[in-house]
């Protein structure tokens, strides 16, 4: 169901929840199978802006990422720097600024260990940074595998494996091999810019979304796999096992894979949010995903980002060019 929505003020983008009725179904689309649920105006939790960090960047802040421990926030900016902020009792303090990229930093991500950070940029490179207990950051690798602007980086949920998405239409994977970071796989197939990638909870699959209006699901095949998929040396091969096409009418800017429930959410330039669920029984070689929910006018402009709450199943946040952040309560429909 579609829960309450924070009616943001343009300046603050946080606010009290307001219950909202269903949007008209978009033309040609089947109505979402989820029965809408209209809660009363919430007496419960609402979102309040606690801090505005205005001193760190000179240009657009493109991405933010919380450290796994929750103490640090990294912010990636068009000013070519990445700021690291530390949570204090009375606010946030910038503890360091990572420099080195030649132009706009597009994304930043923390590894689950909390010791590694990755950034990527229009300068086509991906940087890996190591942080020690004294909060000292050091660049340990500059990866120049992509041939164009890199849009997004994300870490594997439990291994030191990094994925990146690029304007060169590919996804690349990197790991450390003999003290050096290398590109160990390139996923080709998308026909235009790949805007984002997300691992599933197991880390055996990856979802990518693109300007080509498709979401692709990739599966990892290790050397010696019983399906007979060829691998080169000791590196696993990633194969595309599912292509979700025909659902989105414009560029897909973000994809988020819930590690609690397996639901896949997308943020699209047609103002809609969609949630896909894998049909069971699961056929690993050829999984099928079906559209479980479609909110046609989730925002009044492009949806840029979606994120699942890591602790509360079904709680989804989204943000848009319209300046709002919205919160959604999703429930897997009975028949899917």
């Amino acid at each position, binding site marked *: 169901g579609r829960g309450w929505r924070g009616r943001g003020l343009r300046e603050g983008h946080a606010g009290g929840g307001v219950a909202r009725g269903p949007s008209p179904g978009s033309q040609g689309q089947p109505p979402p199978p989820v029965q809408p649920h209209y809660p009363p105006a919430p007496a419960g939790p609402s979102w309040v802006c606690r801090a505005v960090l205005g001193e760190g960047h000179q*240009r*657009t802040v*493109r991405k933010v990422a919380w450290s796994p421990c929750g103490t640090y926030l990294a912010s990636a900016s*068009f000013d070519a720097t990445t700021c690291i902020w530390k949570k204090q009792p009375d606010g946030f303090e910038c503890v360091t600024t990572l420099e080195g990229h030649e132009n*706009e930093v*597009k994304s930043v991500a923390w590894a689950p260990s909390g010791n590694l950070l990755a950034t990527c940029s*229009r300068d086509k490179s991906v940087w890996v940074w190591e942080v020690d207990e004294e909060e000292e950051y050091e660049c340990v690798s500059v990866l120049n595998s992509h041939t164009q*602007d890199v*849009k997004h980086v994300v870490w594997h949920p439990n291994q030191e494996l990094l994925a990146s998405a690029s*304007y060169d239409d590919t996804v690349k994977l990197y790991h450390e091999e003999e003290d050096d970071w290398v590109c160990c796989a390139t996923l080709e197939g998308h026909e*235009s*810019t790949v805007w984002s990638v997300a691992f599933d909870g197991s880390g055996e699959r990856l979802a990518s979304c693109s*300007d080509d209006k498709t979401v692709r699901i990739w599966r990892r095949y290790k050397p010696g796999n019983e399906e007979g998929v060829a691998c080169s040396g000791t590196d696993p091969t990633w194969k595309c096992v599912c292509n979700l096409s025909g659902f989105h009418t*414009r*560029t897909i800017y973000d994809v988020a894979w819930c590690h609690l429930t397996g639901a896949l959410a997308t943020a699209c*330039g*047609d103002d809609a949010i969609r949630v896909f669920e894998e049909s069971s029984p699961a056929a690993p070689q050829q999984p099928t995903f079906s559209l479980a929910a479609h909110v046609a006018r989730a925002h*009044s*402009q*492009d949806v840029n980002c979606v994120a699942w709450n890591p602790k509360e199943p079904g709680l989804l946040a989204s943000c848009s060019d*319209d300046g709002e952040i919205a919160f959604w309560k999703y429930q897997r429909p009975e028949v899917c």
Partner: protein
Amino acid sequence: KVTGVGVGVGVNASHPLTLEELNVVEQVRVKVNDAESTVAVEFTPTIPHCSMATLIGLSIKVKLIRSLPERFKVDVHITPGTHASEHAVNKQLADKERVAAALENSHLLEVVNQCLSARS
């Protein structure tokens, strides 16, 4: 130098000319779908230089975004078959992040504004 757009386009800074006066565009076709809030613009650049085509496309895009209600999606591309680098140019124009970053450059913004201004 800004994202994929050459700044040296031969515009004489002290006597700025509009796109029409420069004769850099042959034909502009516009398709509006009000119900779906989309505007698609096709333009034919007369100059084969890639930077010029990008600048023209960017100027058209900026003009429309400034003039239309926020709900409109604006797509600007080169008339198919009329430019050697049309794929590369179209791809840049379609990338809103690249366009936004480029327009944060005050020099480029100045050039775009000059392209769009009427001669007094």
